[in-house]
């Protein structure tokens, strides 16, 4: 029996025409904004969000309330709010559900957040492939504009507000916040050198806050419940609330589920996810939160005998029994990322899985920094050779060396996000890579079909 969790963020999912104002308003949409604009000063809104202990839902897990505090107090330029809806981290498909099922929640979150930071304009940067998300957001913005929620005096307050959808054009790197800003400005999406950080100098040279869709969509509930109460929904310290969990790959019931922060991968896979897809093929590995987060194995146990270690409470337990939090997963040597797990059973070759992901990174590197551009392509080439049985045993160490030369040597985090999972695969499944170096990848793996017709991938 699937466990039941409180539905806060997703309480309008599944209602008939949940994306329309008619339905959303019947179930509370814009009530919180009405109250917040009337009763709360901008600083009070920001304080509640800070109290909520929300870790940004885009992948980096930075405390959302703290981020707003980085805006300069003395700027002559009004700040922009930019929503990162460029959902594209492999394995991640949660923000799309908000935009499709409940766009008014995101818009209400944008309005309250704009009030808090003093913004007049908000851009929602959506990847252009998400046609339904874009259509529903635009229709919802139109409805909100007709009601005057968006306009010259939203909820009677003298702070004009506009919200626009800005379509991307197909580039994973545009999920990186400074690359997204360049793309918003009409340029190639190449990450910027930092500092200056966007909070100081972001879109069009003005102070800018870039937040993820789920982060901002959570703001109305934080204000409704109060930051502290919302925070206490989560099971971990300094990591509050409920959040969206995704699970895909070899499970019976892939999908997106809302649950408190701090569920375990075991609960996500075997309870929410309905268990492994094939009864005779057990869990081999799980990528916890999007492809950039290093893989975990269920047969590895937490080693934290020291009672000061952050994972001491789980000493001796399987990695998939550690609560999923930003800090706990960092301590585990991986990352929580987007909290959308990719589940792989024993039929999957880790070499082939790594090859699939490294092809992705090689394809998506923006090409600006040499270690990333060359490194990601090189990793993919080496893995291609290993899978085809043309590799050498030394290649396994080569994968490690290339990765180490990418880490920390580039403008943005893309190279680290490529090297970390690569290192994770080799570290956790080294023997499999060595075997591939001598015999290629066995034919029953996911690579079998494509190579049979001549390596079309």
């Amino acid at each position: 029996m699937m466990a039941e969790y409180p539905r806060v963020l997703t309480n309008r999912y599944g209602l008939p025409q949940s994306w329309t104002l008619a339905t959303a308003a019947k179930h509370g949409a814009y009530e919180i904004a009405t109250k917040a604009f009337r009763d709360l000063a901008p600083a009070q809104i920001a304080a509640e969000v800070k109290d909520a202990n929300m870790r940004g839902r885009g992948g980096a897990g930075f405390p959302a309330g703290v981020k707003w505090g980085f805006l300069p107090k003395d700027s002559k330029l009004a700040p922009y709010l930019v929503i990162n809806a460029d959902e594209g981290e492999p394995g991640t498909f949660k923000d799309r559900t908000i935009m499709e099922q409940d766009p008014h929640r995101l818009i209400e979150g944008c309005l309250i957040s704009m009030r808090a930071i003093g913004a007049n304009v908000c851009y929602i940067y959506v990847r252009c492939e998400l046609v339904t998300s874009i259509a529903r957001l635009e229709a919802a913005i139109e409805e909100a504009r007709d009601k005057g929620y968006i306009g010259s005096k939203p909820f009677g307050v003298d702070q004009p507000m506009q919200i626009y959808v800005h379509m991307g054009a197909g580039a994973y790197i545009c999920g990186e916040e400074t690359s997204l800003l360049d793309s918003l400005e009409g340029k190639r999406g190449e990450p910027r050198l930092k500092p200056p950080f966007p909070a100081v100098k972001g879109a069009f040279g003005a102070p800018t806050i870039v937040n993820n869709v789920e982060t901002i969509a959570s703001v109305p509930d934080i204000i409704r419940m109060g930051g502290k109460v919302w925070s206490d929904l989560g099971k971990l310290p300094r990591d509050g609330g409920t959040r969206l969990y995704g699970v895909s790959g070899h499970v019976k019931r892939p999908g997106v589920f809302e649950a408190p922060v701090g569920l375990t991968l075991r609960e996500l896979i075997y309870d929410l996810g309905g268990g492994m897809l094939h009864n005779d093929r057990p869990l081999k590995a799980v990528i916890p939160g999007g492809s950039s987060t290093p893989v975990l194995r269920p047969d590895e146990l937490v080693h934290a005998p020291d009672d000061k270690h952050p994972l001491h409470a789980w000493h001796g337990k399987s990695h998939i029994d550690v609560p999923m939090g930003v800090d706990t997963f960092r301590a585990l040597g991986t990352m929580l990322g987007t909290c959308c797990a990719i589940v792989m059973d024993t039929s999957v070759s880790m070499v082939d899985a790594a090859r699939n992901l490294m092809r992705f990174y090689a394809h998506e590197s923006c090409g600006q920094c040499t270690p990333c551009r060359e490194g990601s392509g090189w990793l993919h080439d080496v893995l291609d050779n290993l899978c085809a049985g043309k590799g050498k045993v030394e290649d396994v160490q080569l994968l490690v060396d290339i990765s180490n030369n990418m880490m920390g040597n580039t403008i943005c985090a893309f190279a680290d996000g490529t090297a970390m999972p690569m290192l994770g695969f080799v570290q956790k499944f080294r023997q499999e890579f060595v075997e591939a170096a001598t015999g290629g990848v066995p034919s029953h793996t996911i690579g079998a079909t494509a190579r049979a017709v001549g390596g079309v991938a």
Partner: protein
Amino acid sequence: MTFTLSAESEKIVDELLTRYPTKRAACLPVLHLCQRQAGHVSREVIDYVSNRLDLPTSEVQGVVTFYTMYHQHPVAPNVIWVCRTLSCDLRGGRELQVHLQKRFGCGLNENSKDGKFTLKTAECLAACGQAPMVQINDEFFENLTIESLDRILNEIAARTAIPGTTTTGTTTTGTTKGG
């Protein structure tokens, strides 16, 4: 041959320009509009956008080549993107791709023998829980099997005119129900 946007789209461009503090920021959305009308981003489209937004053509060209969703060459009336990233791969995405190549008798970035489809691969389209999936024009088709994909393609092929018999270029306009 110079390219011009329809009067209706020109109005959209005028509105787009009010959204941003710079003209340049409208570059991506204007390119989308042009592609929707012309089928792909030709040299003429690039000239048009550079004139309309006061940008050097090299800058516009740089944008076009950076993003995968701008077609730099003419495409068939229907474009199929097969997601090839891990979650789809685990659930049969690669088999779909192989099947499509066989069905169409073409490789990637090529047109089907009947000229009705262009076959491309896509990186993760944020539909991992509904894997495997393809995007056809503007619509996502999820939880596919080879059989269900074939049925969808048969329907689309049946309502697609054979290129060459239409008057102007191609269009990639589809429905927007998706997901």
